[in-house]
C-alpha cells in the first residue's frame, strides 16, 4: 500500500489531519475546499461597525447573543472579541450581556463545551443559557392551527444578536439566520412540525436559500418576533473564518450564502467520474454519529450523478461526542424510525468507518445491510475484495460542507 489519503478529523477536539494508506492501484480524485483564506481581524472589526449604529438606534437596556452549538463547526471567538468590545464601549456592563445557545432539540452544552464555542473568557464572564424547548412562551406567530412558542429569554431581551455559521443544510439551504430561531429556539411541537414538513417533502432545499419555501416561512416568522442584528459566518475547510456578513438577518444571510456556495461548490465532479468508491468524511460536522449524515451532502446535492451504479460509499466520522443527541431522531425520539437502507444511495453499499464509536451504537442509526468498521486495515481489505482493479475513487475530505453541481 503506497497510496495515501488525508482526512481531517475531530472538529472541536484537536482538529488533526490523519494520513491513511490505501492500495496503490486506487485512482484517487481529491475534491477539497480551496486552501484557507483568512478573513483578517481588521475586516471583522470593520464589518461589526454597523452594530454601533443599530445600538444607537435602538438604545437597548440589555443584549442577548444567540449562537449555534458544537454540532456546528464555527468557532466564534474571533467575532465575539470585537463584538463584546463594541458592546462595552456602548456602555453595557457584563450583567447586561448574555448568551443563548440555539440548540433546537440537540444536547445541552456543558460549561466545557460552551468554553469551546464562546471562548473560555466569555464563557466564564457572561451569563449563558442552553435553549430548552420547555422554556418557551407563545408568540404572535401562528403556524397551521397552533401558536408557535419561542425561548423566553429571547422574547424578554431588548436587543437580539444572532451569530451563526452558514453550512449547507438539507432543508434550510444553508444553516444560520432565521433557522437559529425556528427551530433553534422553538418549542418541541414546532421543532417536530418543522422536521415533519421537511421529511414529508413539503418544503426545503439543500444549498439554496433564495426560493426556499422553508426559509421563506421561517423568515416571515422571524420578522414577526424580531431580530435586531445578524452575523453570518462562512468558514474555510479548516474551520478558520473565511468571510462574515452583518446586518439584516435576511440580506446578510443571503450575501453570506452566496459566498458560502461559491466556496463550497465543486464543478466538474461528474466529468471526472463515474467513481467506484466515494469517500465522504464528515468533518467539520463530525462530533456525533447522528450528525454524520451531513457528509452525504456532495452526493445529495449532485444534479449530475458521479457514482457508478454499483459504487460503494464510505462514510467516515470521528464521532468525538459518540452517538449524539437529537430529541426527535434518537431512539425513543418522536421521529425515530428503525433504520432502513438510505433511499438516495439507490441500493449502493454503505460502509462506515470510525474508531471511536462501537458497532452497537452504529446500528441504532444505520441499517443492518450497512457495514461498520473500526479498523482501517480491515476496512481496506474489505474494500479491496469488493472493488474492481484500478478503481476510481473520489474523496471529499470536508464533505459536510461540500456541494457538487
Amino acid at each position, binding site marked *: 500500500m503506497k497510496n495515501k489519503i488525508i482526512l481531517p478529523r475531530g472538529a472541536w477536539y484537536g482538529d488533526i489531519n490523519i494520513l491513511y494508506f490505501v492500495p496503490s492501484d486506487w485512482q484517487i480524485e481529491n475534491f477539497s475546499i480551496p486552501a484557507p483564506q483568512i478573513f483578517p481581524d481588521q475586516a471583522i472589526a470593520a464589518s461589526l461597525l454597523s452594530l454601533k449604529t443599530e445600538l444607537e438606534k435602538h438604545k437597548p437596556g440589555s443584549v442577548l447573543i444567540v449562537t449555534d452549538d458544537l454540532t456546528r463547526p464555527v468557532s466564534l471567538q474571533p467575532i465575539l472579541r470585537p463584538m463584546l468590545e463594541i458592546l462595552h464601549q456602548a456602555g453595557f456592563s457584563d450583567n447586561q450581556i448574555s448568551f443563548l445557545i440555539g440548540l433546537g432539540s440537540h444536547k445541552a452544552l456543558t460549561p466545557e463545551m460552551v468554553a469551546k464555542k464562546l471562548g473560555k473568557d466569555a464563557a466564564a464572564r457572561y451569563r449563558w443559557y442552553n435553549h430548552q424547548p420547555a422554556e418557551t412562551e407563545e408568540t404572535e406567530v401562528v403556524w397551521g392551527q397552533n401558536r408557535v412558542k419561542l425561548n423566553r429569554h429571547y422574547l424578554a431581551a431588548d436587543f437580539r444578536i444572532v451569530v451563526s455559521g452558514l453550512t449547507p443544510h438539507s432543508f434550510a439551504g444553508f444553516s444560520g439566520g432565521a433557522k437559529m430561531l425556528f427551530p433553534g429556539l422553538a418549542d418541541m411541537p414546532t421543532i417536530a412540525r418543522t422536521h415533519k414538513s421537511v421529511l414529508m417533502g413539503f418544503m426545503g432545499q439543500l444549498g439554496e436559500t433564495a426560493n426556499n419555501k422553508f426559509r421563506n416561512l421561517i423568515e416571515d416568522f422571524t420578522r414577526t418576533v424580531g431580530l435586531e442584528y445578524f452575523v453570518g459566518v462562512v468558514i474555510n475547510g479548516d474551520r478558520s473564518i473565511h468571510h462574515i456578513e452583518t446586518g439584516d438577518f435576511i440580506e446578510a444571510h443571503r450575501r453570506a450564502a452566496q459566498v458560502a456556495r461559491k466556496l463550497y461548490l465543486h464543478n466538474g465532479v461528474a466529468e471526472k467520474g463515474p467513481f467506484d468508491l466515494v469517500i465522504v468524511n464528515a468533518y467539520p460536522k463530525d462530533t456525533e454519529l447522528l450528525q454524520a449524515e451531513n457528509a452525504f451532502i456532495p452526493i445529495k446535492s449532485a444534479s449530475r450523478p458521479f457514482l457508478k451504479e454499483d459504487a460503494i460509499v464510505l462514510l467516515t466520522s470521528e464521532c468525538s461526542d459518540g452517538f449524539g443527541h437529537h430529541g426527535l431522531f434518537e431512539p425513543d425520539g418522536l421521529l425515530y424510525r*428503525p433504520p432502513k437502507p438510505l*433511499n438516495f444511495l439507490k441500493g449502493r453499499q454503505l460502509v462506515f468507518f470510525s474508531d471511536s464509536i462501537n458497532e452497537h451504537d452504529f446500528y441504532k442509526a444505520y441499517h443492518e445491510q450497512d457495514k461498520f468498521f473500526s479498523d482501517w486495515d480491515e476496512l481496506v481489505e474489505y474494500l479491496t475484495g469488493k472493488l474492481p482493479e484500478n478503481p476510481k475513487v473520489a474523496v471529499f475530505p470536508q464533505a459536510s460542507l461540500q456541494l457538487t453541481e
Partner: protein
Amino acid sequence: MSIQDDVLKFLTDDTTDNETGNPGPDDSLLEAGIIDSVKMLELIAFIEKTYGIKVAEEDLFPENFDTLNAIETFINSKK
C-alpha cells in the same frame, strides 16, 4: 372499501418490510416509516386520481396527511 382502506392498501402494497403491522387510524404514518418525501408525492398523485380532487400547495401540511383519519378528513373536505 372505505377511503382509509384504499389509502392503506396503496401505501402498503409495495411494502415488503412492514415489520410493525398496519397503522391505526390515528397513528403517524411518518413515524411508522410508511411515508417519506417520495411516497408522499405518490400518495398525492393517488389521491388526486382516485378521488378527482386537486391537492393545492397550501394543503401540504403534516396535519392533512400524517394519519389515515387525517387523510380521510382531508379528502372529504375537498369533495
